[in-house]
């Protein structure tokens, strides 16, 4: 299973580097990666495709982990940082940061994003409660609507910032340099570390509150830590490439189908398969959108929305 996931990720990685308006063969991709000699193809690979792909891997990993954590913490099969408005909360906070406080350095914006993501997480969990999928999704829809509205209002006030923000707000991997990413790395790593530690206690929580306590886990603390990790990961992902929905919904579902309910495996495999999915969607967007390209956020809406339909139909009983 693990080998399969790694293989899928590697395949998506190579695909993402190879595809584009200037399609490259597998041979030249490997050549550019491992035997760089300054030819045109190699430059394209190193300067353009590689950063984009690395970004996709990091963001995908963050979103996949965040989704898996959120589903485990809320014990709710439809939880996803994008669907619940958490990513958009981070995005709103970033827009506020750059419009109202004219902050531009990614290292500072990430703090705004973190605050926004936490606010979104808190709002949704207060409003939606945890048990019923419908309530949670509705809370997400409502919170998201408020965030989107505020965002549009801000853009009307400051049309100047609109143009830069518009593409970012769709969720895209284009034109991000890796230098900006380094500022986000601590957040990302902290989130991953938290997630890695949380696997076992989350397993205990899945058995129910009392059993969890009996097994020596602290449910309240675990939940809090899980939410913090979700906030860290969603904030990093959103600050890097805008709000992208559904990655965190789809992947953990597929993983649970394949690997069962052990949260440690779910987290690990989600972290590997989510970037693969994101990269494939990005490639799809480049192929379908040629000569231009369709932002990965848009592709994710379409692919992920369809997946959500499947999930909604599969849910055994829908509680109100």
């Amino acid at each position: 299973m693990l080998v399969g996931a790694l293989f899928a990720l590697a395949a998506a990685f190579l695909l993402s580097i190879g595809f584009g308006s200037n399609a490259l063969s597998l041979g030249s991709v490997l050549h550019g990666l491992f035997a760089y000699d300054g030819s045109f193809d190699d430059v394209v690979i190193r300067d353009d495709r590689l950063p984009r792909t690395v970004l996709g891997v990091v963001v995908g990993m963050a979103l996949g982990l965040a989704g898996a954590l959120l589903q485990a913490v809320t014990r709710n099969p439809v939880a996803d940082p994008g669907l619940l408005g958490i990513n958009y909360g981070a995005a709103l906070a970033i827009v506020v940061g750059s419009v109202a406080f004219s902050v531009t350095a990614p290292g500072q914006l990430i703090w705004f994003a973190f605050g926004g993501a936490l606010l979104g997480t808190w709002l949704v969990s207060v409003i939606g409660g945890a048990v019923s999928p419908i309530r949670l999704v509705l809370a997400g829809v409502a919170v998201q609507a408020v965030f989107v509205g505020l965002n549009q209002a801000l853009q009307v006030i400051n049309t100047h910032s609109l143009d830069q923000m518009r593409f970012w707000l769709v969720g895209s991997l284009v034109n991000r340099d890796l230098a900006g990413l380094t500022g986000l790395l601590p957040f990302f790593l902290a989130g991953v570390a938290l997630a890695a530690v949380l696997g076992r206690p989350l397993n205990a929580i899945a058995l129910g509150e009392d059993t969890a306590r009996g097994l020596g886990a602290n449910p309240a603390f675990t939940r809090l830590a899980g939410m913090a990790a979700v906030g860290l990961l969603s904030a990093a992902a959103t600050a890097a490439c805008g709000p992208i929905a559904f990655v965190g919904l789809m992947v953990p579902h597929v993983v649970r189908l394949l690997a069962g309910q052990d949260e440690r495996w779910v987290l690990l495999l989600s972290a590997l398969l989510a970037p693969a999915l994101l990269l494939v969607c990005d490639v799809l967007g480049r192929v379908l959108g040629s000569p231009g390209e369709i932002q990965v956020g848009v592709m994710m809406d379409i692919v992920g929305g369809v997946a959500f339909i499947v999930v909604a139909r599969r849910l055994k009983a829908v509680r109100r």
Partner: protein
Amino acid sequence: MTTFVSREAGLDRRSIVVVAILAVVTLALVVLSVGTGDYDMTPAEVLRTLAGQGTKAQYLVVTGRLPRVLVAVLVGAALALAGSVFQTLTRNPLGSPDIIGFTTGSATGGILMILVVGSAPGFVALGALGGGLLTMALIAALCAPYGLLSSRLVLLGIAMSAVLAGVNSYLLVKASKENAARATVWLVGDLAGRDWNYFVPLAAVLVVLVPVVLVNGRALRMLEMGDDAAVGVGVAVGRMRNLLLLCAVALVAAATAAVGPIPFIALISPQLARRMTRLPGPNLVVSAFVGALLVVAADYVGQRVLGASLLPVGVVAATLGGAYFVWLLLVGRRRA
């Protein structure tokens, strides 16, 4: 006729008072709204001009601004009526067109028309109608194994909205720059520049559809009680449901074609109406008035709140409607 309609639409004395208050407030807002803009007028001046006693400049200003406000009234009423019908037929307060994806579907149809044919209101309306109907058919088919009354409808609808929103962005990316700009403005839901050319078709649609819905208000109320009860009192359930659904989709499509998709009005108006009248059932007339008031108010707020920069009505509706929705969920949770 009026007594018949009022009785069958579920109007008791309290509802009539509510309607009267709503109408007065709406009218006041209309007058205020007409007076708002680069050339400010006091309410008294607006009224005098409407009565035909203003200066020529004032007359031009008022006739320039009036259609926009009237379009807002009609759009609100149409959305609210459609929402009321949908919520009753699905027996689900969340089964309203903006939650379960018809509004987004109408938008997709509208954008397609703008991109392929042109942005004349007639084409956009046809596209919106087609998109809305197709979306409804799709969701109904997806939901069929569980029955349209299951709360899965809401989840499926939200999922469908996401897909369609993606499709909408895809269409915008593929479109030429000026077409995309036009479609983007329309997508937000804006009343700017709505003149009599928008008002007349919308009014025509409403003149046909609103009486159909109101006259069938009693049957709608019976349908809410359950299919068996409805059959028992002589309602042709299948035909009536299809007729009412068609009317509601057409109302949404007409409103969407006129100003773009405005969120939450269809969801909220029937809820507010029910709280105001304290009556069960669809509350059709009161809902329509609430919807009209909400849209006019949202437009007024959008013009006022930020000084020089005008907020599109769709943005205001999304923000305030979303906030109200949050509050509803919170209250509902405390009760549960």
